[in-house]
């Protein structure tokens, strides 16, 4: 319990530091926002008025607190680039609202694919003593790890979309209209995110299991009459899963990053595309919020993995 409290405090501290860093980083950016919103022909009076509206005349510390309290209350500020209509600026919350689930769903489906495929694959690999299989899987996984996710996305589009016609490239279905169709389309981008990670995780599990096979408790289990099957699943797999869980936690950040890139390949309207276009348009309020969101997700997942780890292996909970 004491540990949990300590962890939560660290979590909050980290988020605070990230928010300060994000805020500061975007303060030092050259270029005048107001001029870029209004264009060259704006009158000085109009510029001054907008500056006042956006709160750009306040001192930095005050602006940080205004921004932060806004964020905490759900007011994420307004986009500099998109507008709702002629007179109203687009709130960032509205811009992000229905895009966030797409990215999170993509990352989630990828994670499920990784777990569901890599664990049986790794176990099967470790179990088989065949040298041929060993060599084939070794080369295959090594190659899969070298393929960048966006190229994998293109390969998946070509193979499943154009040659096998299992899905229509670019035919995204919104999750609001047809959730099954949405998931069906999402499967392919998720596969592109997942394949390199599946290769990594399977390799990792296999090595971890082979190491465990050499340990004393395996010999003991055999000598007390356990079947090979029982030794494999009850003893070795359980112990080999420990490092795998940590490993999965470590690659969560990469899965999120991979999802953001792969969105671009499959034309998914997630936050990745918004982030890229906001960076290109220098739409800073949107970039700031997206960074904060992504960091929050990543840090929160690390936090969960940490807790989970302690639940699986009670030995470390005392530290």
């Amino acid at each position: 319990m004491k540990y949990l409290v300590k962890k939560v405090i660290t979590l909050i501290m980290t988020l605070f530091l990230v928010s300060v860093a994000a805020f500061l980083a975007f303060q030092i950016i050259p270029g005048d926002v107001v001029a870029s919103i209004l264009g060259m022909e704006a009158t000085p009076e109009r510029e001054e008025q907008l500056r006042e509206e956006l709160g750009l005349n306040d001192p930095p510390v005050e602006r940080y607190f205004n921004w932060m309290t806004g964020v905490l209350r759900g007011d994420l500020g307004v986009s500099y680039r998109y507008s709702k209509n002629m007179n109203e600026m687009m709130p960032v919350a509205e811009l992000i609202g229905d895009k966030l689930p797409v990215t999170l769903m993509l990352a989630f489906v990828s994670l499920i694919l990784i777990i569901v495929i890599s664990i049986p694959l790794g176990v099967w690999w470790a179990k088989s003593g065949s040298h041929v299989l060993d060599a084939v899987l070794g080369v295959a996984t090594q190659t899969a790890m070298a393929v960048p996710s966006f190229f994998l996305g293109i390969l998946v589009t070509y193979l499943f979309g154009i040659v096998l016609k299992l899905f229509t490239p670019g035919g995204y279905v919104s999750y609001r209209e047809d959730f099954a169709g949405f998931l069906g389309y999402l499967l392919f981008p998720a596969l592109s995110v997942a394949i390199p990670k599946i290769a990594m995780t399977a390799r990792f599990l296999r090595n971890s299991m082979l190491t465990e096979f050499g340990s004393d408790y395996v010999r003991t289990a055999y000598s007390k009459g356990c079947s090979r099957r029982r030794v494999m699943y009850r003893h070795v797999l359980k112990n080999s899963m420990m490092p795998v869980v940590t490993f999965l936690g470590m690659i969560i950040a990469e899965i999120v990053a991979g999802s953001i890139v792969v969105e671009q390949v499959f034309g998914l309207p997630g936050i990745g595309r918004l982030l890229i276009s906001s960076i290109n348009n220098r739409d800073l309020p949107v970039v700031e919020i997206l960074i904060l969101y992504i960091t929050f997700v990543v840090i929160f997942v690390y936090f969960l993995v940490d807790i989970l780890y302690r639940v699986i292996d009670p030995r470390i909970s005392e530290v």
Partner: protein
Amino acid sequence: MGRKYSVKIHNFKWNKYLAAGLVMTGIAVLLGILGFFWTPYSTTAMNAAEKFSPPSLRHIFGTDNFGRDIFSRVMQGLGTSIVISSLVVLCSGAAGILIGALTGYIGGVLDEVVMRITDAVNGFPSILLTLVIISILGNGKQNVIISMSIVFIPSFVRIVRSEYLRLRDADYISRARLMGVSRIRILFVHILPNIFSVFWVSVMIGFNNAILAESGMSYLGIGVQPPDASLGKMLSDAQGYLQRAPWYALAPGLTIVWLVLGFSLFGEGIRRTNES
């Protein structure tokens, strides 16, 4: 942990990983460098008659939507990728050695602070962090190099620091200290040569990640800008013609895979030589 503080004499042993990695990266680097001086065809000359011609003896990777030779363009993109990743690895590696040496050897509060920052940066997706820095600095080749170098420093710091921590209390270092050797000399003349066997592995991993990040960013349109050729940009251009000319996408894509695979085999080879 279990390792002894022995000074490693180079009993260099070849293994198949090292050989395969060396051959693969060697071919790619040679082609990339050659691409700066000579390409089989001009990379900009358009030829309407030869639009979308599939790979043949004349154009071994085929031609693109403007009838340009893809192989020549891949050579140039390869060159850009290799130069950018080399600069990134050089800058971040050097900074990593400097910071890692100081924090590992001196330790204390400095070490604690630097390690917390390193952990935070390492936990964050590197391509995102690069994007953030780019969005602050703006687009362009120099800014790509600067932002990637900053993002890659922590991974080097970590390796260098742990090696310095391991060697700090080695007998030969305490003796050097007793003899009154200056700190700078201990850091960079006595310890530094002994961390290289481990350091090279992380250099290879660095190359790997740098190539992936660079091509990823240019695929997203945020990295290297035209007229500089880049493999990522080629891929995103090719995506629109996937049905008509799949080789247009395959050529730059497989080139990236080749390069990354080469560097990772190379790194694995070095790691195995260190262990044996």
